[in-house]
């Protein structure tokens, strides 16, 4: 665990952990509000948004991409509502239709666009470029105290760290209102909590997490982290406070385990090529959920409730 680890693996692992946590925290509330598919929808519609932003600006710099993705997320939310109301189609189906259509449109748009000069393609959209987010100027652990080396950290790391911190802070500040309105919207309304605003803010925060994570780690991790860690965490405890902490643990754990398995697993099996870290992280989070379904302490709660 020396210089090579710091240079090649430390930043991808940290970015993976931060992306997992940023998605897992709002994922808990989406799951309890039976809106888990929103995370899925948002992470898919990010693609056409980013492609459109690229077409307009001709670059893949951060802010145009963020704005494009946010715009696409808003379009998606409006489309879902419109399909649901005008077509009288249930919400889940409306979301499914919306995100597949928009994602497919994004793929078509991408094919028609000359993006050969920049790093923007369908593969990138699906599983990001986690392995390439290395810290070139690092020479070892001491680089963590070297301002010159720190200045050369991948910008994705700083962006993801700020996003995760903001999401964590918002969750703490609005915890009580979020919890009450998630559990009992009518009651929350009656005591003056602005439930519509809170519900909308939750979707926005999820979109911000998805957009920030998308660039670094791709949509596969985003989708997995919105659902798998919170669902696993729900099986571990019957208290929301503990569920959030468990989901952070499972998200971060999947990121570390998935990255290590992707990098070294094939070597252990005698193959020389590493596999996609994003794919492995998402797979690990799914497997952890599978194990929790069989053995977790709070999994038998439905039968215990007796209804």
């Amino acid at each position, binding site marked *: 665990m020396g210089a090579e680890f710091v240079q090649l693996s430390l930043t991808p692992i940290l970015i993976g952990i931060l992306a997992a946590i940023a998605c897992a925290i709002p994922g808990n509330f989406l799951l*309890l509000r039976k809106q888990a598919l929103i995370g899925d929808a948002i992470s898919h519609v990010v693609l056409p948004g980013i492609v459109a932003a690229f077409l307009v600006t001709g670059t893949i710099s951060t802010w145009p991409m963020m704005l494009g993705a946010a715009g696409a997320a808003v379009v998606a939310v409006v489309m879902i509502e419109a399909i649901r109301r005008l077509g009288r189609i249930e919400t889940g189906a409306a979301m499914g239709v919306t995100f597949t259509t928009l994602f497919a449109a994004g793929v078509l748009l991408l094919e028609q666009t000359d993006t050969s000069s920049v790093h923007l393609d369908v593969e990138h959209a699906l599983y990001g470029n986690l392995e390439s987010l290395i810290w070139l100027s690092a020479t070892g652990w001491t680089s963590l105290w070297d301002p010159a080396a720190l200045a050369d950290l991948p910008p994705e790391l700083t962006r993801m760290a700020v996003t995760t911190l903001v999401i964590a802070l918002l969750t703490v*500040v*609005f915890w*009580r*209102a979020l*919890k*009450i309105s*998630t*559990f*009992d919207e*009518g*009651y929350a*309304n*009656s*005591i*003056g*909590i602005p439930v519509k605003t809170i519900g909308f803010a939750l979707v926005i925060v999820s979109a911000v997490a998805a957009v920030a994570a998308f660039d670094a780690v791709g949509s596969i991790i985003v989708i997995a982290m919105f659902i798998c860690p919170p669902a696993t965490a*729900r099986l571990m*405890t*019957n*208290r*929301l406070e*503990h*569920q959030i902490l468990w989901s952070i643990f499972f998200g971060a754990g999947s990121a570390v385990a998935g990255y290590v398995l992707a990098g070294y697993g094939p070597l252990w099996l005698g193959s020389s090529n590493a596999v996609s870290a994003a794919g492995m992280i998402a797979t690990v989070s799914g497997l952890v959920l599978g194990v929790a379904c069989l053995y977790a302490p*709070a999994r038998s*709660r*439905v039968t*215990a*409730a*007796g*209804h």
Partner: protein
Amino acid sequence: MTTNTLPALELAASDGHTGDMNRDTGLAASALAVRGLTVSYGTKPAVFSIDATVPKASMTAIVGPNGAGKSTFLKAVLGIIPRLSGAAYVDGKPLETMRRAIAYVPQRASVDWDFPTRVRDVVTMGQFRSLGLLGFIRPAHRKKTLECLERVGMADFADRQIGQLSGGQQQRVFLARALAQDAGLYLLDEPFAGVDAATEKAIIDVLKGLKAEGKTVVCVHHDLATVSDYFDHVLMLNIRKIAEGPVTTTFTGPMLQETYGGRLATTHIDQLKLD
């Protein structure tokens, strides 16, 4: 829809109930006053142009057949669902400025009881107004939570996950949460629906205690047989208001027939022990 109902509402306003608030003598003297309340789902009115006045320190039942808009009325009064028109006043002031004085108990079936939280956490939600967004839960809050659970006979269950409770126990926890609000006006949506006899007794004892303290209780209620025993005031709804007033003079056979559109058997009405 809007164009259809608005002229009718103006008509209702012109007969003296709504219109000028200052001349509305019922407002200030009442715990809850509703004026010209209309709610519509799609193109059909669910509740149409309702005026109602709930006296202070009364126990009021809202009765009416299924689909009469009883729950809708309550939710629209609270602003949980949008009103097409109308207003609600608590102690003569607009309800929106009086939320601190109101405790609402929603239908038990309206929430997912599998939610990961404990009984004591649900009751603590009732103290949101005094805790605020970030206030720490202090010993006084914990004591209050346990006192409220004690009043509904659920103190022993404080640390249970709410999904592990029976339906009656869940209803009592909801009532404890409302008690924790220290409100003056309690609005309950079907508090006796699907609960066991012990819970029904526990709830009615608490509600009668509230009335004795000078507080006002309003329940959406579907069991006509207990209206005379539990309540002193009644509001009879079937989309429109059919009648309101003291149970002894208002809750009568003819009024029931009108409220239920003649669907009640006369033998059923005879069994209601009407005076």
